């Protein structure tokens, strides 16, 4: 009898501690729930759960499944026979800084069971995008030293552009930029100032008229707290490409 009591107490204490920590975290980052985050970014939530918190909750269905009974059952069913683990969608759009911009968080995972191993396939489109009024010079900017588990994704079907230099030791030490225009890094250097030095994930892409901060499923949680300054950087980049003064630049 006492063994049962001890087991129940241990299980209850463990789950109680987990729930307490989860609630504490949710309260701390309540201002970053999707509904409020979209407003802070000057956007409207068009699709997705406004209560979803990208700082405390993963966009990966396989991780989300562990947080609910229904998800847990789906995960268990998929692990037996294979199939989809789930799909996550969130879309916000608006006109911050006078530009069309959108936050897209899409992630889908399928599980294929095998005799000796299970294979999880992940499709994702996770980005904060700002549309410039003119075409932008293509570029690809990443951290020079990427953190383990926070590596940027490099598409195999897109040809690599030549690496260029900022001509600034601090920026060259921190970032790697690839672009066909050797003058571009110096032009955009002032816009990158607002990227905080403690960011553990950075991947900025310029292509067509789009300027995007592209994420991976594991980097969304680390990046979501800094979406506001990142959007500011994208707007500053757009201003540079359009020949306009960057936000925050006072006329002489």
């Amino acid at each position, binding site marked *: 009898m006492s063994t049962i009591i*001890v087991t129940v107490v241990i299980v209850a204490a463990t789950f109680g501690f987990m729930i307490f920590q989860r609630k504490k975290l949710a309260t701390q980052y309540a201002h970053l729930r999707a509904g409020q985050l979209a407003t802070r970014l000057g956007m409207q939530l068009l699709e997705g759960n406004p209560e979803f918190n990208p700082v405390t909750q993963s966009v990966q269905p396989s991780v989300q499944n562990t947080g609910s009974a229904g998800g847990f059952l789906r995960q268990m069913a998929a692990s037996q026979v294979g199939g989809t683990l789930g799909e996550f969608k969130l879309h916000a759009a608006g006109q911050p800084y006078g530009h069309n911009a959108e936050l897209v968080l899409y992630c889908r995972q399928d599980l294929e069971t095998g005799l000796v191993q299970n294979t999880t396939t992940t499709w994702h489109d996770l980005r904060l995008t700002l549309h410039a009024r003119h075409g932008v010079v293509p570029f690809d900017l990443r951290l020079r030293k990427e953190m383990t588990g926070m590596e940027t994704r490099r598409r195999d079907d897109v040809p690599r552009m030549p690496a260029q230099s900022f001509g600034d030791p601090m920026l060259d030490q921190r970032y790697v930029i690839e672009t066909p225009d050797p003058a571009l890094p110096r032009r955009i250097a002032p816009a990158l*100032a*607002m990227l905080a030095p403690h960011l553990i994930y950075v991947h900025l892409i310029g292509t067509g008229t789009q300027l995007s901060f592209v994420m991976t499923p594991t980097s969304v949680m680390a990046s979501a707290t800094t979406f506001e300054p990142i959007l500011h950087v994208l707007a500053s980049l757009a201003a540079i490409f359009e020949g306009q003064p960057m936000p925050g630049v*006072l006329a002489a």
Partner: protein
Amino acid sequence: MTEPTAIPCGRCGAPMRETGSASHLTVTVDMQCVHCGAREGLPADLRQRVLALRALRVQRRWAEDAAHGPAIAYLKLMENGSLFLAPYAFGIVMLAATLANARAWNATSALPVGIIGGAGLATLVAWRYLRGYLRRVLGPLIGASPGVPGRPERCRRCGGELPAATGAFATCGYCDAPNLTSGAGLRGHVDATLLYAHQTAAHVTAAGQRVATWFRRAFFVGALGGGGLAYALAAC
């Protein structure tokens, strides 16, 4: 232009106040006359200035976050000792409950008690030392951050000191006059703070890594020492 500026109404000449959203994300500046209620847009140069000031204010907040945020986060984390010690206390309680229930005490059952107890004790010692270490290293870094240069701005009407503005305009606390802030020195302050953030980031990261390394070492030393001691005592 370093002095606060009035924006007079084009119809009656009374000062105008900013209405609507004063967010840095918007690109419009709506002004309304406090006297006759007329609504006007601003001339392009003035509008640009207001937008720039709005953006500068948030840039300043982000720059200060970048300069202090990680250091403050580390210090706050280390002030909360229960975060590091609660798991050991929890482990000991669970173990005690299990062992009391089993009513068996020998060298083998003493081993986990020694491991958890030793690791917990070593973590306690490491936490107390590292908390002081972080205060010594990160405290001065936060204190040495560049401040806003120059004196506080003054009201264009009464000369009273203006409160710290959160947007482009500041309302005088004495005479209620709306003032367009000058933003003098603000750009320089943002740039200096960002530079400071970049220069000190490596120190803050190094301090954080040192803390993590010492906690790891404390765990292993404490677990090995405590486990060995408990086993030896129980075997005697």
